[in-house]
C-alpha cells in the first residue's frame, strides 16, 4: 500500500474548503502585522499627546493646536478616502470584463493616492518652514512625523505597486484571473482605514 493507494481511497473525508486563496490569506496575515505596527505607532502618539518638555513655556513650542492646519489635510483626506471608492469601481469593472473602464478607474485611484503623498509633502514643508517643527523639536514633532510618515510611506508603496500593476494591465500582460489587482485593493482599503483613525486622532481629537 503506497500513497497512491491512499489517495485513491474513494470515501475519504471531504477537504475543508478554504474561504480565501493562498495569496489572500498571505495578505491578510501581512495586514495583521501592519495593524499591529500602526497600533503601536498610534498608542505612542497618544502617550505623548499633550506631553510638555520639562520647563517649557506655554505657547513657545509647536503643538498640535497651534501648528496643524486643517485645510490641506481635509483635501488630502477626501482624495485618499474617495480613492477607496474608485478602486472598488475599478475592480467591479474588471470583474465585468470592462478593461478600458477598469484602467480609467484604477488610474484615477493612483492619481488620488499620488495627490495624498504630494499633499502630505506640502504639509510637512509648511510645518518645517513656518512652524519650525522637526522630529527633534519636541515629542510632538517626533511622534507626528513618525506616525504620519509611516502612513504616508504605506500610501507611497501602494501607489508604486498599483502603478506597476496598472502598466502591466495596460500592456495586457496579466491574465484576467490574476489576483494582483484584487489583493492590492485590500491593502489599499486597509491603508485608507488606518488613515481614518489617524485623521480622527491627530487632526480632530488631538488638536
Amino acid at each position, binding site marked *: 500500500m*503506497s*500513497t497512491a493507494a491512499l489517495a485513491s481511497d474513494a470515501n475519504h473525508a471531504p477537504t475543508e474548503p478554504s474561504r480565501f486563496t*493562498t495569496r489572500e490569506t498571505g495578505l491578510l496575515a501581512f495586514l495583521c502585522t501592519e495593524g499591529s505596527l500602526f497600533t503601536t505607532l498610534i498608542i505612542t502618539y497618544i502617550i505623548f499627546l499633550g506631553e510638555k518638555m520639562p520647563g517649557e513655556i506655554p505657547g513657545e513650542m509647536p503643538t498640535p493646536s497651534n501648528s496643524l492646519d486643517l485645510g490641506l489635510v481635509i483635501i488630502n483626506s477626501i482624495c485618499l478616502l474617495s480613492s477607496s471608492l474608485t478602486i472598488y469601481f475599478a475592480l467591479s469593472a474588471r470583474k465585468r470584463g470592462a478593461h478600458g473602464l477598469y484602467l480609467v478607474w484604477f488610474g484615477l485611484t493612483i492619481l488620488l493616492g499620488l495627490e495624498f503623498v504630494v499633499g502630505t509633502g506640502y504639509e510637512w514643508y509648511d510645518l518645517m518652514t513656518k512652524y519650525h517643527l522637526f522630529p527633534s523639536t519636541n515629542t510632538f514633532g517626533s511622534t507626528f512625523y513618525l506616525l504620519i510618515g509611516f502612513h504616508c510611506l504605506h500610501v507611497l508603496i501602494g501607489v508604486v505597486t498599483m502603478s*506597476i500593476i496598472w502598466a502591466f494591465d495596460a500592456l495586457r*500582460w*496579466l491574465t484576467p484571473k490574476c489576483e494582483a489587482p484584487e489583493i492590492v485593493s485590500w491593502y489599499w482599503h486597509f491603508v485608507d482605514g488606518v488613515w481614518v483613525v489617524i485623521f480622527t486622532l491627530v487632526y480632530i481629537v488631538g488638536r
Partner: protein
Amino acid sequence: MNEQYQHDQQPSTPQQGILMPRPTAAPLVLAFGVMLIACGLVLNYAFSAVGLVLVLGGLARWIYILASGTGEELVPLEREPAPVKISRVQVEPLRPGMAGHRMKIPLEVHPYSAGLKGGIIGGIAMAVTALAYGLISGRGLWYPVNLLGGMVVPSVVHWTPAELAQFHFMEFAIGTVIFGFTAIAVGLMFGILLPTMPRWPILWGGIVAPVLWTGAIYSFMGILNPALGEHIDWEWFFVSQFAYGITVGIVVVRTEKIPVSGIKK
C-alpha cells in the same frame, strides 16, 4: 504569475514531472540590497545607493518572474518511497478489568447538572446563613453583602459600621455576581470531585473543603485586603462555608449517576 502550483496544477501528468518553483537569485539579491541600504545609514550613503540598485534589480527580476509566469519548472520524478508496511502488531484498547492493568475509570458519574443544582442550593443555604449572621449579630442585614462587594470596591474599607449596615446598590450587584459565580463554579467542581473521594464524600465536601478554604482565605486576607479582614467574623464565615459544603455534598450525592459515554464495559 502563480505560486499556487499545488492547487492549480493538480496531478496533471505525473509521468513527465511535477511543476515546482524554479530557483532564482532574486530574493537573495533583494535581501542583500536591503541590508546595504540599512548599512548605508551607518557607513556611507554610497552603500545605500548600491543597495537601492540591487533592490530594484532584484525586484524587477521578481516581478518579471511573477508576471511572465516563468517561475515554475517541470521537475522529473525521482524514486518512489518504499511501500508502507502493514503492521502485524494488533492494538487492543485498555478496558476495565483487563489482566495486568490497574485501569480505574468511573463507569458512572454524576451529571454536571448535579453540581450546578448543588451550587445553587448550597449558595442559597450559605446566603441565608450569612444574612442570618448579619441580623443576629445586630450589624445589619446588608453587612456581609457590603463586605463581599468590598473585595472589588476599595473604598468599603473606610466605611463606618453604620454605612456597612445599609443597602448599597453597587456593592449588592458586585457581591451578588461574585457570590453567584463562585457558588456555581465550586458546585460544579464538587460535582466532579466528590464522587472520587474515598468513603464519605459529604465529609470531604462538607468539612474538609470548608476548613481548607477558610484557612486559605484567613491566611491570604492579610495580603489580599488586610483592612477588610478585620471586619470579618471568622467563626461565622466558617459556619456559612460549612452550610454551603454540606448542602452541596448532600445534593450531589443524592442525584442519580449516569453512565460515562465512550467506555466499553
